[in-house]
């Protein structure tokens, strides 16, 4: 069908005509409109995953820049660069190029630190995002697949961190590599074979930096990018979850359309994340490799800790008892195997399978699109807190020498604290969290039944004092609220139900007309101005004199 200039609705502007030309070839108007119209729910905690995505973008960009200068080789060279204290020292080409990147490339140190900070923030935001998903039950059917993809991406992010952190071949990372080598050796049966496959021979060999490099810049990022694409695709396909609230059901999404509101906010967040990482990269020094010196198998510095996300494994290794298992035939399962391979493997397996475990135990196989408040699912919340405590004790133990030093306590006492704490504290936290969840649930019900405490004390004619309660909705003949709990936050302060006027806008001088705002407030029924004709002489219960009653069970 030929379009002519006189056809109704034909574009008249230059831009419109170009858009028509494009759509004539690609036929994208329909899908584009569906995308622009897509509704995203609005909650600050839904931005955590975005922060992870943006940090990854920065890591990708800054990392690409670093590859222009980095030489992933263990060839021995003599340093001749501009950092005087190390001049004339024998080192690997990898360390030499990392030093040159820091001292002889304009802005190279800035980019290196931006890369390191973005990696740290990447893992941190993944973990926080994961906790949000966990505690609100967003992983439940139909989103189990995306949960598993997320856990796999977390593991890949850790591998990214470990391989990247090893590359400069400084004393600290070389010590880390030595421990990685020992961990691979500790695997029963195949340990030495696996070590020979990874390192190409005995520690340290000449291949490992090159192999870690290609894993760090190509293999793992490629898998991560593919998984991110699937993760986002599934999110778009399944639509975002939302918290319970007015008008929100299992069958809709309430929020902003992608264009323009959500797009503007997301782009704003992207730039803020970029800005924060750039500021950190310039202002906060991280991993000053020139201070550690080149790797030397006979040297180590005390207080050597890995990046934060590996600290928990360092901690588990420190507190694990000296238990080699000697098998008949003079075979040994080294003690190192358990706190590293087994603990990490078990933690990530349980984490990945949690949606299936919960589905099995709770028998809840229905699809859910409304999120849960953590207090409403005390068992899951307590399990999560228990896991976090376990992780926290391990992490603390990863720095137990620093704690012992700074707080002047015995190092061995710190080790024993870790050994006992990792067993004793998680169940205690479980019980405590469970009680707190139940308490919060009870309080929600109490407010729904008896209303909000107004802080207004009335004296009744016979001399009794009562506190006036503001019911949240209609009440029955006993004065008890008839609203049921719907999984949404219950207002607990008068201000949350319009007890206060909103402030007149303007920082130095008002930019609104106060009398205009007053009228607006009255119209909306907000504030005391609106309540002047409201009778506050009873507890809000119409049936009796406002005498508070014992809650009946």
């Amino acid at each position: 069908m030929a379009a002519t200039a006189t056809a109704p609705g034909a574009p008249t502007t230059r831009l419109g005509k170009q858009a028509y030309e494009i759509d004539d070839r690609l036929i994208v108007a329909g899908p584009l409109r569906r995308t622009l119209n897509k509704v995203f729910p609005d909650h600050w905690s839904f931005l955590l995953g975005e922060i992870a995505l943006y940090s990854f973008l920065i890591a990708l960009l800054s990392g690409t820049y670093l590859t222009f200068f980095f030489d992933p080789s263990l060839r021995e060279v003599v340093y001749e660069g501009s950092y005087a204290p190390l001049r004339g020292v024998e080192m690997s080409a990898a360390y030499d190029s990392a030093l040159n990147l820091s001292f002889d490339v304009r802005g190279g140190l800035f980019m290196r630190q931006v890369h390191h900070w973005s990696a740290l923030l990447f893992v941190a935001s993944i973990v926080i995002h994961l906790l949000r998903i966990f505690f609100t039950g967003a992983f439940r059917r139909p989103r189990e697949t995306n949960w598993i993809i997320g856990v796999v991406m977390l593991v890949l992010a850790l591998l990214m961190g470990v391989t990247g952190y090893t590359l400069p071949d400084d004393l600290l990372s070389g010590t880390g590599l030595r421990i990685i080598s020992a961990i691979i050796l500790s695997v029963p049966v195949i340990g030495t074979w696996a070590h020979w496959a990874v390192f190409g021979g005995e520690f340290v060999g000449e291949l490992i930096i090159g192999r870690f490099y290609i894993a760090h810049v190509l293999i793992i990022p490629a898998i991560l990018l593919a998984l991110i694409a699937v993760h986002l695709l599934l999110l778009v396909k399944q639509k975002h979850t939302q918290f319970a609230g007015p008008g929100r059901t299992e069958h809709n999404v309430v929020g902003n359309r992608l264009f323009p509101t959500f797009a503007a906010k997301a782009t704003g967040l992207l730039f803020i994340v970029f800005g924060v990482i750039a500021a950190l990269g310039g202002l906060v020094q991280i991993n000053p490799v020139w201070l550690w010196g080149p790797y030397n198998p006979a040297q180590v510095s005390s207080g050597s800790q890995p990046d934060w996300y590996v600290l928990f494994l360092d901690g588990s290794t420190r507190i694990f008892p000296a238990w080699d298992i000697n098998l008949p035939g003079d075979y040994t399962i080294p003690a190192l195997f358990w706190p590293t391979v087994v603990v990490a493997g078990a933690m990530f397996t349980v984490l990945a399978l949690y949606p299936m475990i919960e589905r099995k135990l709770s028998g809840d196989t229905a699809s859910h699109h409304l999120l849960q408040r953590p207090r409403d699912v005390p068992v899951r919340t307590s399990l999560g807190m228990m896991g976090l405590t376990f992780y926290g004790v391990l992490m603390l133990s990863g720095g137990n020498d620093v704690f012992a030093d700074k707080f002047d306590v015995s190092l061995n006492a710190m080790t024993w604290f870790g050994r006992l704490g990792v067993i004793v504290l998680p169940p205690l936290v479980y019980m405590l969290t469970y009680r707190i969840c139940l308490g919060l649930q009870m309080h929600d019900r109490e407010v729904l039944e008896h209303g909000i405490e107004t802080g207004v004390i009335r004296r009744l004619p016979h001399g009794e004092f009562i506190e006036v309660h503001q019911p949240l909705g209609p009440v029955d003949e006993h004065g008890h609220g008839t609203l049921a709990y719907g999984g949404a936050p219950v207002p607990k302060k008068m201000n949350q139900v319009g007890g206060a006027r909103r402030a007149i806008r303007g920082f130095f001088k008002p930019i609104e007309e106060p009398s205009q705002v007053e009228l607006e407030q009255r119209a909306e029924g907000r504030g005391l101005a609106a309540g002047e004709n409201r009778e506050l002489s009873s507890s809000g219960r119409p049936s009796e004199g406002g005498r508070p009653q014992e809650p009946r069970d």
Partner: protein
Amino acid sequence: MTTHDTRPGSTGGADTAGPLHGGPDDDYTPEQLAAMPREDLDRLGARYDGVQILHVDPGPEPGSPMERRAIRQVGLTFTLAGLSALAFVVVYVGAGWFFPDWQWSVSGSDFSAFFTPLLGATMGLALALVGVGLVLFSKKLLPHETAVQDKHDGSHFDRVTTGATLVGGLHNSGLARRKLITRSLGFMGGGLGLMLLMPLGGLINNPNKGNPLGRTAWAEGVRLVRNDGSPIRPGDQEPGSLETVFPAVPGGNRQSDAATMLIRLRPEQREQEAPREGQGDFGYGDYVAFSKICTHAGCPVSLYEQETSRILCPCHQSQFDVTQGAKPVFGPATRSLPQLPITVDDEGFFVARGDYPEAVGPTYWNRERI
């Protein structure tokens, strides 16, 4: 679009599209759409996408003080972002030109210490202000709308029809009946998979050839030398001190398993000394030599506390007692540090009497068997 298509095989524009099978173009003619205002078209499209705009809180009234203020704020933020970005350019380009040099040197200017922080501060501020400007813009100037989009469960119709197409294709292929094809396909897949995995075999080396994990560069008569290559005589060290020594072979001080600690015990330590069985004569006088490589995870054990005769590994805090044959006394390590048998040669310098009697470094599966 043009109808003047004269290529061979073309119908010269006479080829018209067939009837459309449903879709909104049937519901609304171009004339109807042209008569609708933009807002209605927006909502109409949204309705086709299952979206309903429930409520729109319009932005501030055009020309109101509220709007003017918000515009000023957003404009100021973007301007500052641009200024900050230019400041980055000035610092980056100007260093070494109209600013002092950015490169660090012992006697260099203070500017080099501020170069990286200045880059970070200016770029960070520029990018963050762009973000703040966008957030201010969307919060203060854009209308706030509340939209609801329907969420559909899977469609039964889609499932049944897709299933029919899939099963139909499978049925036509006859794979369920033609067993030879399915079996040979499976066989081929397994073979090809194995074949493609095979090149990974290049990574496999035999770790048990020549016992590389159980041997070090130490051998009978190899001198104990310091990092700088100088040999050591008895009496060079104070009692209670520790020195890291290496085998006097080329590159001995860079080998990952050869580093050794030569310790001179104090007299009271010698009284408590209880060497491992069969290794009573491994020391020389008040000197003992132990592997520096931790038996736990291979870090160099470095911290010697001579008051308690303990050596601490800084990686995982294993502690070894040098008077007890370097037995582990605390922490995750399970085995003693291997002891190097030493003596002095004709010239009076320390030499090894042989290699370590056992593998140094971390434990592995078949360590006890070699």
